[in-house]
């Protein structure tokens, strides 16, 4: 472990729990505790506690914040209700994705959560491109936890009964054992669960309280990756980057209806063209034949072995006990059931385009009952 990595507020806590630490996004982070497969299954069956404090938490306030953000994001912030996290992305003039993020209106400001590896660039991008009257605060004093899994709600409600009233993609301020938190019913595993913004000085106390619940175990980055892959959720820097557009990345749901029609945000011209004519390539899920994982960097090839696309995430699905992947393929191949060939280390693998998510989402949606 090099000394150049920064430590998260829970660094010592992870090490005491036996985590294996690796460098990720500039931080020393836990890749696993007891093992990726066991942690993955625990999250799908019970509740997993993730430390995602490396992610950037930003406050954006001031006159013109809403309009200023709408110039950079394809979300309809004008109709975004208080306390409703919205998935969106920062876009380049050419429709490339600078980062994907969650943005929530909270009273007089917007609360934004961005990826850890990209947060410094995002901050610079926002400061350069937002009107001068808009103030951006990087909330370095806040840590971020995620509690994910079918038993997450029961475990958290023991500490904060009011969270039972939250439905998927809603959030509010709560006090947990005297600790002021912001909790939203959201996450990146495909399971029901919560993301909890908490002052870094109190995160260890809160993490201990959560870990005291019998349903809860700590989960590392390794299982976070296999869980989000099964859930069909793209990871920035792998499945998304400045060369991919929201249409190519199959994230059209994040382009709000009014914004799609009116434009007025960076990248709209290309996005409008791709919405009308179809993109050249598209992100799809792949079910890989056999047992051997096909990983990021493998090529999608045609019958003559020419590169026609690339695998951007791939691994072994603990839930399906089979290799799965995400790849960009030519639009004509982006149809469930299409067989594609993949080249990895001089070998050809066969895969079928599969609907995503690979494992059904189990979000707690409004009106779905408890």
């Amino acid at each position, binding site marked *: 472990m090099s000394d150049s990595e920064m430590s998260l507020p829970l660094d010592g806590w992870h090490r005491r729990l036996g985590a294996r630490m690796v460098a990720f996004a500039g931080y020393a982070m836990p*890749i*696993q505790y007891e*093992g*990726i*497969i*066991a942690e993955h299954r625990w999250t799908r069956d019970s509740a997993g506690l993730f430390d995602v404090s490396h992610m950037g938490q930003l406050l954006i306030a001031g006159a013109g914040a809403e309009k200023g953000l709408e110039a950079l994001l394809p979300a309809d912030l004008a109709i975004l209700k208080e306390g409703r996290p919205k998935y969106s992305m920062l876009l380049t003039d050419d429709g490339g994705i600078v980062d994907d993020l969650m943005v929530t209106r909270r009273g007089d400001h917007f609360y934004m959560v961005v990826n850890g590896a990209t947060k410094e660039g995002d901050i610079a991008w926002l400061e350069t491109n937002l009107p001068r009257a808009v103030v951006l605060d990087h909330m370095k004093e806040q840590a971020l936890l995620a509690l994910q899994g079918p038993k997450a709600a029961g475990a958290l409600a023991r500490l904060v009964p009011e969270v039972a009233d939250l439905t998927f993609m809603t959030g509010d301020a709560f006090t947990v054992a005297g600790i002021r938190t912001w909790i939203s019913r959201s996450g990146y595993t495909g399971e029901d669960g919560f993301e909890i913004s908490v002052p870094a000085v109190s995160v260890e106390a809160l993490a201990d309280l959560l870990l005291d619940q019998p349903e809860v175990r700590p989960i590392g980055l*390794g299982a976070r*990756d*296999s869980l989000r892959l099964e859930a069909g959720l793209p990871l920035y820097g792998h499945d998304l980057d400045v060369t991919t557009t929201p249409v190519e990345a199959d994230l059209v749901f994040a382009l709000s209806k009014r914004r799609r029609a009116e434009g007025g945000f960076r990248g709209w011209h290309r996005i409008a063209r791709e919405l009308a004519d179809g993109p050249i390539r598209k992100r799809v899920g792949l079910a890989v034949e056999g*047992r*051997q*994982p096909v*990983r990021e960097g493998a090529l999608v090839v045609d019958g003559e072995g020419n590169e026609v696309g690339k695998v951007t995430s791939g*691994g*072994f699905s*603990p839930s399906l006990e089979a*290799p799965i992947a995400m790849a960009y393929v030519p639009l004509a191949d982006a149809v469930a059931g299409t067989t594609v060939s993949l080249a990895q*280390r001089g070998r050809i693998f066969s895969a079928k385009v599969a609907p995503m998510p690979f494992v059904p989402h189990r979000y707690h949606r409004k009106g779905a009952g408890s």
Partner: protein
Amino acid sequence: MSVYYSKEHEWVRVEGDTATVGITDFAQGQLGDVVFVEVPQAGRHLARGGDAAVVESVKAASDVYAPVGGEVIEGNQALVDDPALVNSDPEGEGWFFKLRLADTHEINDLMNADQYKAFCDEQ
């Protein structure tokens, strides 16, 4: 019968001119949950230091190199069928392949158990 170790974290159990090869407990611990293994076919000639097998965990793929050269007698089909044997019994049921040593002197370049333990402590 003696067991030797390589710097690539393989173990080699030698009986006469026959060697059984696998990866060490240290190696499986570093890899994490193993989900795929490929072993060499009987009859294949392996050069010392050449690619011999593949082991993949949830996170990453790794090559297993032949710590000694020779002709493969058997690849462990039980391991191919149940790759998790690498994690549960790396230096027993989780063996990768057996070969007939081309040159028994090659084992002299490997480490004994004490040397290997010291080597791992430095990692």
